[in-house]
């Protein structure tokens, strides 16, 4: 899978939001917020194909987290990505 190229991750204060700017318009009533970990992962996934396994691997290289917990979080995150249409292919 791959994240949509046009999505923009922005840090506002302590929060991270994903917005989908269109040609000349941006809808800020429809934004997705990520915490720091998710935002970090989002950065790593830019412009590349990935699988949930790759996401877990990336997470565990950066954070001290059990494989079980990482897999669970990744599964949830992927579910949100798909549901919200943030991926261009999966």
């Amino acid at each position, binding site marked *: 899978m791959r994240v949509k190229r046009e999505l923009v991750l*922005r840090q*506002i204060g302590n929060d991270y939001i994903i917005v989908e700017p269109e040609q*000349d318009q941006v809808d*800020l009533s429809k934004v997705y917020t990520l915490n720091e*970990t998710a935002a970090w992962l989002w950065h790593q996934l830019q412009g590349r194909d990935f699988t949930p396994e790759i996401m877990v691997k990336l997470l565990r290289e950066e954070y001290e987290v059990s494989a079980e917990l990482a897999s669970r979080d990744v599964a949830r995150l992927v579910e949100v990505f798909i549901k919200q249409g943030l991926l261009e292919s999966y």
Partner: protein
Amino acid sequence: MLTNKHIETTTEPIRLANEVFFAEIKRFLEEGKDVIFAVSGNSMAPFVKHGERVLLKSMDSVSFRTGRIVLAKTDKGVVLHRIVAVDDAVVCLTGDGNLGQYEWAERKDVWGVVLTNVERKLDMQAPHRVLRAWIWYRIRPLRRLMAKCTAN
């Protein structure tokens, strides 16, 4: 290194501090993009109610006109209110839903103007709608009286 940090995502309406949220809107407007956002609070009711989305574009010279709804940094904070008076240097704003409060902003601190109420698909610059808002504004003494009666 962080430990046991869960990934969290949410698609709840964002609850960012107003200040940073407005700064973000301003940034997009400056980039030349129109911005849609959900209004919080009822100070512009009945024309824009809490939770309704509005479409905003950046200011140009013709937008400095009474009757326009603008997003501006005023002496009382950032507000989305209607222009009731304007001169070369400053604008005076008030909320349609308010009964007496005014805000002042320098022209350079007026960031954007409302084109439409996205929720109800209303052209907020249509003359008849601006006229209705003006009447609504002029009958403030009556509205104050009614507010008093309902309060008692």
